[in-house]
């Protein structure tokens, strides 16, 4: 038996391919949206993995340092370091801000770290690590900076000495790593006007009249002794969950294992974005289905007389329905292939990391075929309602 669908497609191949390509653009957008979500999840995982920590210690009753603000005294790491099972600690600050470069500005996450300790930048792809105590920085390659560039972070200029790769915040902002003290300054240091203002208020307050009290309070106001998190690397053979439990119990701090931190980043921090993307995917699926349904319906309406003749000469309804269904599945397949190629082609142009997973592609293929099959029902219904008697007479 002749494959009627293949013959019909061959006869109007250009129009069919063009229709499939148009549908493919929509599927490409769908795949890209899914890739953006996957990229966000992957960014979060890379952020955690690159910190090389097993436990994240943050302010009690917070989900810090990424999901909620967290402040810890910067000497709390010494007490943590003494706990059984703790191999190393590293104090860190994280603050998302605009940094100035070459007359413009960049949105980045500035991370303060201690060299050689958990939280230091990993995956250096160019330049060298930070070796000086101040005003050197390592930047993620996505900032567009190169070693030798200078950026201004709040009041200070920093020389970019090295580059990392795939080091971005959960929002997709590339990271710049600076020494811890500079990170603390970037986040907590007041500007000079505010310091002068605080001093004037202090001098005017009779409660702080004794010079030693006033100096002590002034010192507290101008220095910053906080970090956002202490990252802990656990000794081999120790369970990070138990170490985290000990920290929670004895130090009145919140401690999360990597798995718990990942849960916070993925399930809480990017949950809204995930819902938004999910809704977009549903809308795109519905729009795609509507387009395929409309195309197949109009294609069927254009063939009603031929369908009537086919029925009159004894063609089974199943054969006619099969023809429409096969054409729909073909459109779905072409749409998927074009969509996949398009999404891979335009992914590098996206500011956020777009991660194309094979399983997402497989799901998209199945969804494309299911949507195309469902969309063909309208055309099939129109074809099955054609009366063979319509072929006879005017």
């Amino acid at each position, binding site marked *: *038996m*002749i494959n*009627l669908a293949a*013959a*019909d497609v*061959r*006869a*109007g191949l250009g129009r069919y391919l063009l229709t499939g390509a148009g549908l493919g653009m929509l599927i490409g957008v769908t795949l890209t949206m899914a890739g953006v979500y996957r990229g966000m999840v992957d960014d979060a995982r890379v952020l955690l993995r690159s910190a090389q920590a097993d436990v994240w210690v943050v302010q009690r009753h917070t989900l810090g340092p990424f999901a909620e603000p967290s402040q810890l005294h910067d000497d709390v790491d010494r007490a943590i370091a003494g706990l059984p099972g703790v191999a190393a600690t590293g104090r860190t600050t994280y603050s998302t801000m605009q940094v100035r470069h070459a007359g413009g500005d960049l949105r980045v996450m500035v991370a303060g770290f201690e060299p050689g300790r958990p939280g230091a930048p990993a995956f250096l792809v160019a330049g060298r690590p930070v070796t000086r105590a101040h005003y050197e920085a390592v930047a993620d390659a996505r900032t567009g900076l190169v070693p030798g560039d200078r950026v201004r972070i709040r009041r200070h200029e920093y020389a970019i000495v090295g580059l990392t790769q795939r080091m971005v915040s959960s929002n997709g902002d590339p990271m710049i790593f600076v020494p811890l003290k500079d990170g603390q300054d970037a986040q907590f240091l007041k500007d000079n006007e505010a310091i002068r203002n605080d001093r004037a208020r202090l001098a005017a307050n009779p409660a702080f009249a004794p010079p030693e009290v006033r100096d002590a309070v002034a010192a507290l106001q101008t220095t910053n002794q906080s970090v956002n998190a202490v990252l802990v690397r656990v000794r081999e053979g120790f369970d990070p969950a138990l170490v985290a439990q000990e920290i929670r119990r004895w130090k009145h701090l919140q401690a999360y294992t990597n798995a718990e931190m990942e849960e916070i980043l993925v399930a809480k921090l990017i949950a809204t974005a995930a819902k938004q993307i999910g809704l977009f995917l549903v809308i795109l699926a519905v729009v795609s289905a509507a387009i395929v349904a409309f195309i197949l319906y109009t294609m069927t309406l254009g063939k009603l*007389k*031929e369908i009537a*003749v*086919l*029925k*009159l*000469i*004894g*063609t*089974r309804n199943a054969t006619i329905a099969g023809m429409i269904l096969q054409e729909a599945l073909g459109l779905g397949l072409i749409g998927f292939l074009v969509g996949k190629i398009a999404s891979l082609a335009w992914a590098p142009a996206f500011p956020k990391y777009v991660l194309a997973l094979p399983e997402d592609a497989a799901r998209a293929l199945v969804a494309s075929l299911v949507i195309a099959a469902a969309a063909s029902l309208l055309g099939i219904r129109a074809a099955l309602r054609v*009366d*063979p*008697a319509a*072929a*006879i*007479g*005017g």
Partner: protein
Amino acid sequence: MNVTPAASVEAPAILVEGLAKRYGSGPTAVDALREVDMMVQPGEVVGLIGPSGSGKTTLLKALGAVIEPTAGRITLGGEVVYDRGWKARDLRALRRDRIGFVFQQPYLIPFLDATDNVALLPMLAGAPNARARERAREMLAALDVAHRAGARVAELSGGEQQRVSIARALANRPPIVLADEPTAPLDSERALTVVRILDQLAREYRTAIIVVTHDEKIIPTFRRLYRIRDGRTVEEAGEGRRFD
């Protein structure tokens, strides 16, 4: 009853007795066919003529097993198709295997070439593709369009399309062919050619052919005619004029 049995011992290919068809019900009901009787022998070409709205198309649809008569009996090739409310079980197979259709417009499948348009019928009947195409080529040759076998429908002239549609109608060697104004879009010469072809094929394949027509050019060519008026048929002798 106006049926005049032909002087043949062969069973009639088409036998219609007291056929009626009513559309709708109550005061708005329309009796498209009232008391139709008709008989066509194998190998015979019969004209069915009548003014617009007289019931020609309804009769053709009933004979083509696509509408159900209200009353009466239709026997095709010795097999009862309708009998006072009863109908044969597989009308689709009946249409496929026993009835060929030729339409006013050729209504070829535009995305198939001439060969496959004809081969489709044997294929639907279960013939392997190669054999069906071979049969199609034979039919196209019989209709002098073998040289257009690979042409798409849009590449064929009106006359060629009509020949291909006749080849399609005869591809399964049906005992009955129903032709609905097959010459309407053609000029006199081509119209007469089509009727001559139908006449030759009727004699060659022993096919009973009913040609519904308004076409004054071809009416004189029929040896026997049924005139239909107000849903009733009257048999008339035709001129049976020679085609040349």
